[in-house]
């Protein structure tokens, strides 16, 4: 897929909490085709400590309104700058980057999309895509507390939403892998993004239940286009770039101890 460097306009900065912001970007031109699971490299301007672009998952693309949604979690100065961007400001973005999630062949497949914390981001666009294709979508979203459960009503537009929080402030108490849904149902395809320990636990559950499982990795990156070789992960094919061979990997490809 052809990659573009675009100056997008910030249409709306929706503060979801102190720690999270939803950036809604648009352009006078039609947005290029972007697949679920792909990401963007966002330039951070005016930070004394943040030098490199920030790789950010594509949260959602609305071609009718020509909107690109990015979910930002404030971690350091770079993400703080992004979360503090003002409406009307231009944001320099390289996209679309990386591969995408794979679609099950059988339309009756039971799908589970599992996200943790800000890792839920790519699953909204993926869920919307699957719903459009006629699949039944189940989201399992986990976070520390109610405050970290993001965009719940958006996910509900595309499927059933199940929630766990570590403190029990919303949904079932515990980790995503402890949710009763996983004891009661079997899934054919599991898609997951979030902290590595969570994804490994999900991958382990998928392996045990013979589900096909794809994970989206979030390795530290510099270029985002396969030039610097900084973001590698160890696979059955050796070290490969997460930015070009991923971010989505089938768990059978990764050398995870699960």
């Amino acid at each position, binding site marked *: 897929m052809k990659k573009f*460097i675009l100056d997008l306009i910030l249409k709306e900065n929706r503060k979801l909490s102190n720690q999270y912001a939803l950036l809604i970007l648009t352009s006078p031109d039609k947005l290029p085709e972007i697949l679920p699971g792909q990401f963007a490299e966002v330039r951070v301007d005016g930070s004394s400590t943040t030098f*490199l*672009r920030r790789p950010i998952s594509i949260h959602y693309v609305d071609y009718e309104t020509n909107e690109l949604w990015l979910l930002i979690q404030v971690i350091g100065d770079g993400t703080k700058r992004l979360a503090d961007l003002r409406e009307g400001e231009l944001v320099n973005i390289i996209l679309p980057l990386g591969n995408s999630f794979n679609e099950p062949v059988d339309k009756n497949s039971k799908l589970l999309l599992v996200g943790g914390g800000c890792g839920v981001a790519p699953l909204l666009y993926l869920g919307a895509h699957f719903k459009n294709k006629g699949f039944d979508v189940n989201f399992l979203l986990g976070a520390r507390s109610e405050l970290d459960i993001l965009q719940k009503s958006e996910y509900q537009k595309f499927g059933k939403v199940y929630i766990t929080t570590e403190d029990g402030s919303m949904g079932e108490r515990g980790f995503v892998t402890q949710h009763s849904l996983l004891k009661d149902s079997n899934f054919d395809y599991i898609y997951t993004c979030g902290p590595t320990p969570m994804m490994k636990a999900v991958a382990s559950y998928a392996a045990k239940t013979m589900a096909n499982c794809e994970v989206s990795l979030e*390795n530290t990156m*510099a270029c985002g286009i396969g*030039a*610097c*070789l900084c*973001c590698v992960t160890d696979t059955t094919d050796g*070290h490969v770039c997460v930015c070009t061979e991923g971010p989505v990997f089938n768990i059978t490809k990764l050398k995870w101890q699960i």
Partner: protein
Amino acid sequence: MANLNIKIGRLQLKNPVMTASGTFGYGTEYSDFMDISRIGGIFVKGTTIRERQGNPYPRMAETPSGMLNAVGLQNKGVDYFIDSIYPTIKDIDTNIIVNVSGSTLEDYIETAEKLNSLDRIPAIELNISCPNVKEGGMAFGTSCISAAQVVKSVRRVYKNELIVKLSPNVTDISEIALAVEAEGADSVSLINTLLGMAINAEKRIPILSTVTGGLSGPAVKPIALRMVWQVANAVKIPVIGLGGIMNAADAIEFMLAGATAIQIGTANFIDPTVSLKVIDGINDYCDRHGYKSVSEIIGALEI
């Protein structure tokens, strides 16, 4: 419009702006964004005699105004380069230069010999300055004796332009430059990355899997500029300057300090098209100052 043509020995460049090894892949990674043949030269990823998996993740740590990397020369080996990559890049209308690294003297010789036969590779850049591999690499580039030895051995088998990439992790970089010049290097490029380190205090662990790594980006520019100036004053062969160049003004500073041409590295990650902007900026500078040719600014620093 100034004349931007530059010669580095027998190497003809359409302009003095090139992209640094390890930051520009094989060039084609950037072709969605621009016409890469406009660049004066592309230094492709460090190539070794055999495939290398490189260092484990994490390999990169961001620092204020820069980054540390510890990639460790991941590449598929020179034979793979010749069979599978060279055919896809040989027709790009610019200088494609292969960066060559090794663990032993024999590795360097054998790799250089294999590249000798490629019509469309007019030069190699001998990397005796990689800080991220346990054996070889920087070990060759930090003593005059070993630097001279590897250049002498490669010079014997390699007929095209031989560029030697120098390490800044030395007491006196001019001595090393003089040593490689004496053994037949056609030009030198400097600087490679500076050895650095980053720590995660919360976890009390180093950020890089290798503990130390190579620092690049604007943080290193003043050091690079000083070293280019020192080396350009010491040697007679052309000097290619690099280290933290982010824009045309930086590039011009390196040329004023004595660089015949420059390489852009880390800046490619922030703006993939930066090299074209630097070419245009150098042209504007020449026009503004009444230089008919960019070669007039080489070493034009007034002290």
